[in-house]
């Protein structure tokens, strides 16, 4: 059996604009809600203990903190073989999420090209 380990929160986590962050196990990661008006979450992100920050994961329609972070599974021949991550990513409707970072980088590159041309 392909076992792996997980830890999950035992009790309900409640966040609002005042109490706006939650630290993961051993401070490995942190969930931070930047903006919340009681109805939508326009801005929230995650941080890790290495000082890295994700992009803004919220938007004007965001009504939950549901997220899939990273790619966890059996690492073999330079690839990660996933089961639960595969199903979770398949379940996501908006785009092929595997390429979201590539799209963001490409967008940044094109934007800098356009900005350069304007100057």
């Amino acid at each position: 059996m392909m076992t792996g380990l997980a830890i999950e929160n035992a009790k309900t986590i409640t966040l609002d604009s005042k109490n706006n962050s939650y630290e993961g196990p051993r401070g490995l990661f942190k969930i931070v809600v930047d903006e919340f008006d009681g109805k939508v979450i326009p801005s929230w992100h995650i941080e890790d203990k290495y000082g890295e920050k994700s992009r803004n994961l919220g938007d004007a329609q965001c009504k939950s903190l549901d997220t899939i972070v990273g790619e966890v599974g059996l690492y073999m021949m330079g690839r990660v073989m996933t089961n639960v991550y595969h199903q979770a990513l398949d379940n996501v409707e908006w785009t092929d999420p595997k390429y979201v970072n590539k799209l963001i980088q490409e967008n940044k590159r094109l934007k800098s090209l356009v900005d350069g041309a304007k100057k």
Partner: protein
Amino acid sequence: MGKRNSWSIVLAMMFLPAFAFVGYAQESAHYKLPSPSASYVDPPEMPQFLSPKLLPNRHGVKRGLTEGFMIRQSNIQNGKIVIPPGGLIYFTFGGEFFSTLNGEPFAFAGKESIWVDKKEAMAIRRDLTMPPNGPPVPLGEEGTIALAHTFFMETQSGIRRAAFKFVFANGYGTWDASVFIPLDTYSRSQNAIAYSHLQGEGMTTPPPLQLLGDPYNASSPSYVVADGVASEGTKVKEAGALDMIWFKISYEKPVIASDMAAGQSISAGKYQVKVLSVDSNQGTARIALLDSQGNALAEKTLGPLTLETYKAKQLIEYGTMVRPTLFLDYENMRVQLDTKFDDIWSPGPIKLMNEAGDFLPLPQVNEVSTFHGGKVDLVIYKDVKKMELRRPWDEDPRFILQTAYI
């Protein structure tokens, strides 16, 4: 008044199951995946946290370690963001797939650790009535592997078909199981059912009957036995599936005690490990664990570990009679034989380490290098941590430990 009471009972009976399901959904996020509108964080966005790290096992074979987490079933209630129990789930995966006794590395909540052992068992539940598309029913306590009734077909060649799926608490839908229930005791024989179906398909050779006519479905890790169909759903006589009970890890690197001859002892923490006798031909070693005064606390013959043990591919990994013979456990100490194999694609030895320390394909090796000339190689863990699944994590009780079948 009496009439009103009886009506209220009828109403209560009608709505009771519905309330029960709503209560379940509110209670925990188990058996569910993140919503379709979930965001995704790609490993290159936070490379130090999310990209695979390489760490060697005891024999220097590198394994990839990955970490990450998910948030599921979170929502906004009364102006607050709510993540239900089990909604925030952290995953980690290292070399544990390959072996339990080779000191495979993995990262646990950002800390490097070594996989020492694991215990799996069947979770079994009897007499369930399951409505189609109802909530998954845990086969053991809450958070163990669950059975979900995913599909129901009224008739298929004179029988009813019910499809099930085993679902892990982390949301992963794993093995499928279909069962076939005759409509009544006078329905056609299972052979007739199979044959009529086959004619329609243009086949002449009957397939295994289990696919087409049996009220049970079994594979090595799971099984379902159905009893019949009632108006409220399929009656499951018994269902069982494999689940994890505990795992043992160590944050400290073990003491490698190589070339231990009979009579020799080595100190490990507050204990002494003494080798009483070694039989290289049989592949056994009798060892004793002594306290600081030299009193014997435990004694055991480890082994036999021979080429035959290695040749049965998954014996060390899954042989519940074999693996425990290779180690001695005392409180948080573990003394084990230094198993020296590499399993490249799947659990079980493919290459063995020879005396020179090189890995050779199993057929080319003619001796087990754990034993050599009346000496034995041991591995001693001084501080093994047993972590029971579905129980609070002692280091941070905000979290409970869970299976991450990945």
